[in-house]
């Protein structure tokens, strides 16, 4: 794990890790026994790491969600699904690599998969617009979801986007229409669906593949109506207040579970999914099986009815019949 990029708040951990490494190489070169000192340092490291990761602020978790080495959709797809067949293009305008679509199997069972892709190297990042999809991406995702409905296979979506692409071409080709059509269409798709927020859940761009029977979120991911920076710029008129905005917006996994926005939190290895990719991927796999199994054991009409009610009831408001005539 030595060549991983570490975040600012991980400094105390990195410092101890370095001490341990230094001591180890010192003991080796000088051929002396430092076992006792080493085990003391390991204990200390464990205590410090536990403390740091247990008290992460929302803004620090956003940094983990955006970590350059965080696993992306393609990483999970490659690891989890066999016989993956990718679908490309919306058959109307073009393809969009920012949304990966296809079918694949886990333990012999076929799933439809849609996922935002941010891009690992600079070339892929540019092609994917850093995970910001164009209308053709959303329309391609819709094509896949209709095929999933027809072939009666469950849909899994991996959400990881800062937001839908903000640009001239996206507006010309109807970004809002593409997202709205998906949101509405997903309410009546006659097949079980599950969304997993694996990194950034950026507003409409996330919901465009996110209206599903089950929504799970990975522990250090976030889901928000606006980026913390965007909110800070508008409400505080200061982009540097993103940390305050991240707290105020209640965008972390536990907040979302408490508010009933997500159905479950998928645990991550300590420090984030990038610290132990296989463990993170296995947790996702278990969650996929658990929930698609539950959904598939419900009659489709019941499932559709539950899905409708779930979203119809989102959010609370105040209603006082006593005041009805005052207005």
């Amino acid at each position, binding site marked *: 794990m030595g060549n991983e990029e570490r975040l600012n708040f991980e400094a105390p951990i990195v410092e101890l890790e370095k001490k341990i490494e230094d001591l180890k190489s010192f003991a080796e070169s000088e051929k002396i026994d430092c076992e006792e000192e080493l085990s003391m340092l390991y204990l200390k490291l464990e205590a410090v790491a536990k403390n740091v990761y247990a008290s992460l602020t929302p803004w620090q978790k956003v940094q983990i969600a955006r970590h350059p080495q965080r696993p992306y959709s393609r990483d999970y797809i490659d690891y989890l699904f066999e016989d993956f067949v990718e679908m490309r293009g919306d058959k109307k305008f073009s393809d969009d690599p920012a949304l990966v679509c296809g079918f694949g199997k886990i333990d012999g069972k076929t799933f439809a998969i849609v996922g935002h892709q941010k891009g690992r190297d600079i070339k892929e990042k540019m092609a994917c617009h850093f995970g910001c999809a164009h209308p053709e991406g959303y329309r391609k995702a819709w094509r896949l979801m209709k095929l999933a409905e027809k072939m009666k296979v469950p849909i899994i979506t991996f959400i990881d986007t800062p937001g839908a692409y*903000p640009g001239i071409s996206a507006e010309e080709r109807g970004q809002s229409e593409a997202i709205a059509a998906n949101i*509405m269409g997903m309410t009546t798709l006659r097949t079980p669906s599950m969304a997993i927020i694996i990194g950034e859940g950026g507003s409409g761009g996330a919901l465009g593949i996110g209206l599903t029977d089950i929504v799970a979120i990975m522990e250090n991911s976030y889901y928000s109506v606006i980026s913390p920076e965007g909110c800070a710029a508008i409400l*505080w008129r200061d982009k540097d207040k993103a940390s305050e905005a991240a707290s105020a917006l209640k965008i972390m996994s536990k907040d979302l579970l408490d508010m009933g*926005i997500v159905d479950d939190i998928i645990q991550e290895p300590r420090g984030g999914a990038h610290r132990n990719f296989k463990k993170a991927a296995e947790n996702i796999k278990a969650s996929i099986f658990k929930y698609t199994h539950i959904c598939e054991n419900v009659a489709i009409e019941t499932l559709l009815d539950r899905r409708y009610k779930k979203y119809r009831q989102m*959010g*609370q408001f105040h209603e006082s019949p006593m005041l009805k005539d005052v207005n």
Partner: protein
Amino acid sequence: MPWFLRPKKSIKNLELKRKSLPDGLWSRCDGCYETVFNKVLRENFMVCPSCEHHLTLSAWQRVSLLMDKDSFEEHDSDLESVDLLGFKGVKSYKDKLRDEQKKTGLKDAILTGIGKIDGREVSFCVTDARFIMGSMGVVVGEKIARAVDRSIERKVPLIIVSGSGGGARMYEGINSLMQLAKTSAAISKLNQAGQLYISVLTNPTMAGIMASFASLGDITIAEPKALIGFTGPRVIEQTIKQKLPEGFQSSEFLLEHGFLDEVVARGQMKDYLSKVISLF
């Protein structure tokens, strides 16, 4: 001298002139920078008499423009937003709500109810851009969903007039985003029930509102020169680091790109709607 005979003046002179005018009698048109008598503007449904620029219309003004006289009956007027997040920004959400309510006389950014257009009943919704930019929180989402239900129950067409620069309401966080899901799910029920939905877009209709119910009309029309789109022009300019072309994201731009059925001036709006609902 009547307004239409006065020579065009520079903005600076108008600013000077405005200062000497009593407040609340005159307004300056954003289109031609002429000062116009407020009374004239109101009688003209806030369309500038010299350049036909469409100024912001309040929700109740929109009702009088489009609904038959005394036909509109408001529903769900008692719904009020709650501070779901305990939002603490520069101003608390509670204070913000109270201020906006005082300013507009509305409980939230939307008016919904049943009214008539040339004798035909419709389920009618209109957002009010003056209330936190007409943004959609839980109350706006809920009132639209209920208006859709009414449309289905009464078997009457649905008309939603949108106007929101903010789209979703930040103060309600993710709950606000979920209203995109709520309203879109409701409209999909309307489609199953076979009821007509006409979406009317006014200046500005952006972001979350445009990425949900406003884009889902069977017939979609807009007032002239309204700003309509997903991402706000300033954010796009910052992203691509260049100026946007004139008229980008205008009603006329959307018409040209195939996302509108028609651009309809305010004065012809009622006749247009009446004609469409008479077809089915």
